[in-house]
């Protein structure tokens, strides 16, 4: 018979839409509006999963996101999703789910052997063993790892897309129950911008599970209609507030298409991640029922009372035909009545002796048997409750006595009271206070964070009746609206007509005794179901001194499971408090850490994934490089041509060819990515004098000069050529990776240290497209395209000329990073593509070769030009680089000057830049290879330097290298040894750093 536990009528499911789904390989049916859990219960399936440690059989205890037990592996293949709460999965046709953490199957799970040896596996047992022999730990651990871990990760890439977005509002209302709806309605009425969100697919919160379902839903719908018509209100269902951060920044996850099933969402993203900035926040997050902690309280069929009520009233499902309601407060009585009304045989067991006559008579009218001052002392049935035994509680609640009554039942509805959901308030930085009257923590508004103004209303504030929730909601909404300068009106909120049972006082009973002392006998008292943490574990923790909340948590793992202790934390605190004989607040409360419920990684990334992960920055000539077969290198975010292989060429061959061509004829390099800064103002020279180590006063207009920048540690951090365009006007270039850093460096000093100086820096990096042409034929090539007189005499080395190149306005800098005759042609970026095409065309007769960054590196190394970040590493001074020539001896001050003369910076024998020539000219030393003081047969060996740059140089006709070597400048001519990781050793001659054209005639040619 299908859906044997489905009631013939009632609930807000759509019985006209029959859905079929698969659980553990079996076909079932349910209705639109079901959750996977309600549908399984309707089909009489109570066993839904296995616990983490003991593999105990488990069923759903809740109907919402607090569920610790009923975690399933949803769907398969690329769409699979581990650890998904069956109580939160909206049923769709064709849904496929599997139970987790069991082998070979749920009914028969080998792992359950753990529960047989459970007594040997108390909290923290692993700290006490698996230590011998030491070598075995890794083997033990393999098994531990296999055993742990619940569900399985997908093995394919996520086929879904996600959307992240910011949102702003006057008032954010967290929670769409009676309090939240009232707050939003009251606040919206005055024109405030509102966002109202709720994790359910329908608004209404607790009301959706109440007996007079019809009346409640019509009340909700009425309120929602008004809100929907208001343009200033955004209603977000299926949206969970996951985190509450400083200055009212709240993150929320919206499940946009999950409820449609895999690949049914069309263009819409699977989930949307909201980053909401709210001027005011109303927290109406409701509360979570606590289970009573009694012997074997984890058997499938033992559920939270409100969950039983919700399954009956919202889903039209009767979780069991024989129901025992076990409570220490009045809220569960309505559930008893609902179950009876649904046709169940109901017995109510109340730990209290003073049940109100009103409640008693209600039970009598419905033939519900009541045991006062009694408790469940044991549960029979392992894969599902078959019966419970109840016994009388002693006055002090410490023991059970007298005769045991056996009551046959398939469902136990238990209520140990209600815990306000203070997560959001606590995350906002607010402190909680303990409220005896409800035996729970509530927000302490006097200890809220000033920068995150919020109001708590309803059950999360300790008020559990619908009428109280609505009143508080109205008040909170009004206050929030007023705080943003909007008026609010209570009258806009409809009156709630449904009557409720009056709630009497709760009599806390944190641990229900059995005939055995806690921890003895077979039965276990679970408070953290998923992590299998029992009252006995808390006793052990106390015994061993793990008494502070955090120690308790970490030692027993209570509250650390995927439900983060929503149903267990307070029970654990209370049990520890009793053991120590202190009050619950004295034990303290653990910090509530985001997210409220687990948050999909993909959603957090939103759209900023794949191509949008990190921008690929490209120069105006990029397409031309692609067309010419460039292989690109990532330099920062930039794509730079690395080399241009021709048919049949590998990287080495291409680079050798490009390198030769430059010195033989002419080559061109895209240098657009270098940082460029326009510097103007009457104090511009003063700035250069401070940020560079050399002198800038006398630089002539139209001339260029190379400069080194130091930080205040005295270490090189960038370099480049700067050109004087006018008396008070300069054009600075920086390294590609350093562009932003240098710009910020200049502004920092100008704005914070020398605000009175008149200097204006503007980044013009992308204003200019730059092609560098290098080689003996560079002049002739340029002459073909320009009206500038490029003759040696009128356009000398280290000067700049303006004119037209290839018919477009250009600045041509005669500077060189190759030691060749070289011009860097700058044209406005819009003409970049035009320039490179013109050069290619005119270059044909000179066999113009495009070359990439690798050939550039070889060419500059042949000349001993350093690359900041490769030959330097942030710990080297100009002297270390053998560049004393660029440090002014006359300047009083420049950044980093004082650091040059610190004890350690001025000591000799610091690592210094030198050249290396290997004994065997065909050996190209690996970059990073180390020079050793002496060669030993095996490490450790003392090192005295390392290779920073190393290439095969076709122009030197052999391998060359740059290295830093202790006292290197004085060691030229010596032979040093380099020890390779494979054990081999290379000898190399220490030389100066120039390997080609030592006299430097070519660059001035």
């Amino acid at each position, binding site marked *: 018979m299908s859906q044997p536990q489905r009631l013939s009528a009632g609930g807000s499911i759509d019985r006209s839409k029959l859905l079929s789904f698969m659980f553990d390989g079996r076909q079932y049916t349910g209705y639109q509006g079901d959750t996977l859990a309600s549908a399984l219960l309707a089909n009489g399936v109570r066993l839904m999963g296995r616990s983490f440690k003991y593999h105990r059989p488990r069923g759903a205890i809740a109907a919402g996101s607090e569920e610790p037990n009923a975690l399933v592996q949803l769907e398969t293949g690329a769409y699979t999703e581990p650890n998904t709460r069956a109580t939160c999965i909206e049923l769709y046709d064709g849904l496929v789910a599997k139970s987790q953490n069991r082998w070979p199957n749920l009914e028969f799970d080998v792992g359950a052997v753990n529960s047989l040896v459970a007594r040997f596996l108390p909290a923290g047992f692993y700290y*006490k063993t698996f230590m011998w022999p030491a070598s075995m*730990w890794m083997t033990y651990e393999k098994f531990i790892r296999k055993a742990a871990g619940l569900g399985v990760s997908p093995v394919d890439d996520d086929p879904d897309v996600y959307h992240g977005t910011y949102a702003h509002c006057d008032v954010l209302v967290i929670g769409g129950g009676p309090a939240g709806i009232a707050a939003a309605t009251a606040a919206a009425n005055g024109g405030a911008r509102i966002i109202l969100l709720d994790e359910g697919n329908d608004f209404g919160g607790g009301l959706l599970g109440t007996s007079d379902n019809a009346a409640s839903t019509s009340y909700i719908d009425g309120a929602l209609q008004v809100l929907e018509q208001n343009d200033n209100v955004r209603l977000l269902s299926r949206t969970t507030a996951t985190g509450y951060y*400083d200055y009212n920044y709240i993150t929320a996850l919206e499940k946009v298409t999950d409820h449609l099933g895999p690949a049914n969402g069309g263009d819409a993203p699977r989930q949307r991640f909201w980053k909401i900035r709210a001027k005011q926040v109303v927290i109406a997050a409701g509360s979570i029922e606590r289970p009573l902690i009694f012997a074997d309280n984890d058997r499938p069929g033992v559920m939270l009372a409100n969950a039983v009520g919700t399954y009956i009233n919202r889903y039209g499902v009767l979780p069991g035909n024989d129901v025992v309601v076990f409570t220490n407060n009045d809220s569960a009585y309505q559930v008893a009545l609902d179950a009876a009304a649904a046709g169940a045989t109901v017995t109510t067991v109340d730990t209290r002796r003073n049940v109100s006559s009103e409640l008693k008579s209600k039970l009598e009218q419905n033939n519900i048997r009541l045991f006062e001052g009694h408790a469940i002392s044991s549960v029979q049935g392992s894969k599902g409750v078959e019966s419970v035994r109840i016994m009388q509680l002693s006055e002090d609640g410490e023991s059970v006595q007298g005769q045991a009554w056996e009551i046959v039942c398939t469902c136990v509805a238990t209520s140990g009271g209600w815990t306000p959901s203070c997560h959001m308030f606590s995350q906002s930085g607010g402190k909680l206070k303990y409220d005896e009257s409800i035996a729970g923590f509530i927000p302490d508004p006097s200890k809220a964070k000033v920068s995150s103004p919020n109001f708590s209303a309803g059950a999360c504030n300790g008020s559990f009746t619908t009428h109280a929730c609505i009143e508080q909601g109205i008040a909170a909404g009004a206050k929030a609206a007023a705080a943003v300068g909007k008026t609010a009106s209570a009258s806009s909120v409809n009156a709630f007509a449904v009557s409720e049972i009056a709630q009497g006082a709760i009599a806390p009973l944190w641990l229900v005794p059995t005939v055995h002392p806690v*921890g003895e006998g077979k039965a276990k008292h679970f408070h953290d179901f998923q992590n299998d943490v029992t009252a006995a574990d808390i006793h052990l923790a106390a015994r061993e001194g793990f008494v502070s909340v955090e120690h308790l948590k970490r030692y027993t793992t209570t509250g650390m499971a995927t439900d983060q202790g929503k149903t267990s934390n307070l029970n654990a605190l209370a049990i520890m408090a009793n053991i120590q004989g202190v009050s619950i607040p004295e034990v303290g409360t653990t910090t509530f850490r985001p997210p409220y419920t687990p948050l*999909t990684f993909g959603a957090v990334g939103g759209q900023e994934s794949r191509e949008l992960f990190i921008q690929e920055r490209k120069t105006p000539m990029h397409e031309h490089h692609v067309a010419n077969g460039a292989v690109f290198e*990532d330099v920062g975010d930039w794509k730079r041509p690395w080399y241009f292989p021709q048919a049949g060429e590998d990287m080495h061959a291409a680079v050798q060819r490009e390198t030769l061509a430059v010195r033989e004829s002419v080559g061109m390099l895209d240098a657009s990515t270098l940082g460029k800064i326009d510097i103007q103002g009457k104090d511009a020279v003063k700035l250069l004098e401070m940020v560079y180590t050399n002198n800038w006063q006398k630089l002539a207009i139209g001339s260029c000069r190379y400069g080194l920048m130091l930080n205040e540690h005295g270490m090189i951090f960038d370099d480049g050529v700067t050109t004087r365009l006018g008396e008070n006007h300069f054009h600075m270039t920086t390294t590609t990776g350093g562009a932003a850093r240098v710009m910020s460096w200049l502004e920092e000093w100008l704005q914070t240290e020398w605000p009175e100086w008149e200097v204006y820096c503007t980044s013009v990096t992308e204003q200019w497209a730059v092609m560098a042409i290098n080689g003996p034929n560079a002049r002739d090539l340029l002459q073909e395209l320009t009206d500038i007189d490029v003759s040696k005499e009128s356009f000398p080395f280290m000067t700049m000329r303006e004119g037209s190149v290839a018919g477009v306005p250009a600045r041509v800098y005669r500077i060189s990073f190759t030691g060749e005759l070289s011009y860097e042609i700058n044209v406005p970026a819009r003409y970049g593509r035009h320039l490179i095409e013109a050069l290619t065309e005119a270059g044909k007769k000179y066999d113009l070769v495009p070359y990439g960054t690798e050939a550039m590196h070889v060419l500059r190394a042949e000349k001993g030009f350093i690359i900041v970040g490769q030959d330097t590493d942030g710990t080297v001074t100009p002297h270390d680089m053998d560049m004393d020539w660029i440090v002014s001896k006359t300047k009083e001050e420049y950044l980093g000057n004082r650091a040059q003369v610190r004890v*350690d910076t001025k000591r000799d024998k610091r690592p210094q830049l030198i050249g290396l020539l290997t004994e065997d000219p065909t050996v190209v030393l690996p970059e990073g290879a180390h020079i050793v003081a002496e060669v030993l047969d095996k490490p450790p060996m003392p090192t005295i330097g*390392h290779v920073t740059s190393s290439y095969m140089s076709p122009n030197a006709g052999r391998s060359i290298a740059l290295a830093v070597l202790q006292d290197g400048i004085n060691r030229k001519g010596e032979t040093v040894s380099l020890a390779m990781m494979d054990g081999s050793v290379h000898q190399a001659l220490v030389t100066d750093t120039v390997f080609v054209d030592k006299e430097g005639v070519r660059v001035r040619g």
Partner: protein
Amino acid sequence: MKAYSLFSLARNAMSYHRNWQQAWRSPDPKSKYDVVIIGGGGHGLATAYYLATQCGISNVAVIEKGWLGGGNTGRNTTIVRSNYLLDASAGMYEHAMKLWEGLSQELNYNVMFSQRGLLHLAHSVHDMQEIGRRGNAIHLNGIDSEFLTPEQVKEMLPIINLNCRYPVMGGLLQKRGGTARHDAVAWGYARGADAAGVDIIQNCEVTGVRVENNTVVGVETSRGFIGAGKVGSVAAGHSSVIAEMAGFKMPLECYPLQALVSEPIKPIIDCVVMSNGIHVYVSQSDKGELVVGSGSDAYNSYSQRGSFDLIEHTVGPLCELFPLFSRLRMLRQWAGIVDVTVDRSPILSKTPVKNLYFNCGWGTGGFKATPGSGHAFAHSIAAGEMNKIAAPFSIDRFNTGALIDEGAAAAVAH
């Protein structure tokens, strides 16, 4: 101290675990100790443990303002490695590594030190040069290190996306690297120190450092004055505060450092993965959770709260390098307070005040050093002079300029 073993476990099971003794006592402070250690984190407890067990000084108190192991010891991502570039760092971290390798047995407490390997990924020519240099330096310091090709990386990590935004060009592997159970380290050292006679005093906040003619004589605490022959401050994020009490400044700034874990899943990655190019720092715990290191915010803070954008900039890269993680979920995020020096290396040093020693500045990398730091600090305090391993980490280096700059050595991009 009753020894832990499979047998003690079985024996206690028979008596329903009623007879386990306290892991450590909760004594009232004495009026004076030979050495007072400020801070009951891993480093402080290790220092006390080695003072009592190796330096013959057992009249020691560890003073903790909260619960022991409650600072960065209980908030880090539990990574252990010793593959550092510079000799001073290699000396310290390899010293720690060697102690890690026998720690569970030494403490008779399973700290679950698991050498599942630690893999650094290189994503650019510059990264390759960096690991090339570091790999060689580590090798020549006698520490294990090997280079991997992208294919070998893929073999170790079948689920990795080699062709991510900055394609993986190679890797540097330290097989002896891995993880340990962070809480267990604090608890194991505490239990061992307590057994050796050390008083561990929790919920006791240091409110002042009493100095007489430039020599420390004790500490003012929320439980009264406690005299001390020598004081070792191992207060991590609160070191500047202790220094201020003693009347000097430290070259430190405190930042929030964030981390997060996923829901537990069956084993999917075995080794620890670090990528500076994509900014990923992930391992999988024995419980099955992906443990992910995030970044530190750039503003000073003692709040143990970070900015959410850092979480975005941690999860994004995680999914870029491991696209299949996209459907997994973040279970919990948190932050610690890290005390950072300019050269990103720690301070183990004498101070301007006689007999007052500081161990701090571990920044984002302290956990892995715990045994080595405690061992070196204990022997240095006992001797009154920083020992060979600790000496390079003196405060003086910020005046002489002899920084130990691992950060800068990793170099800026060109």
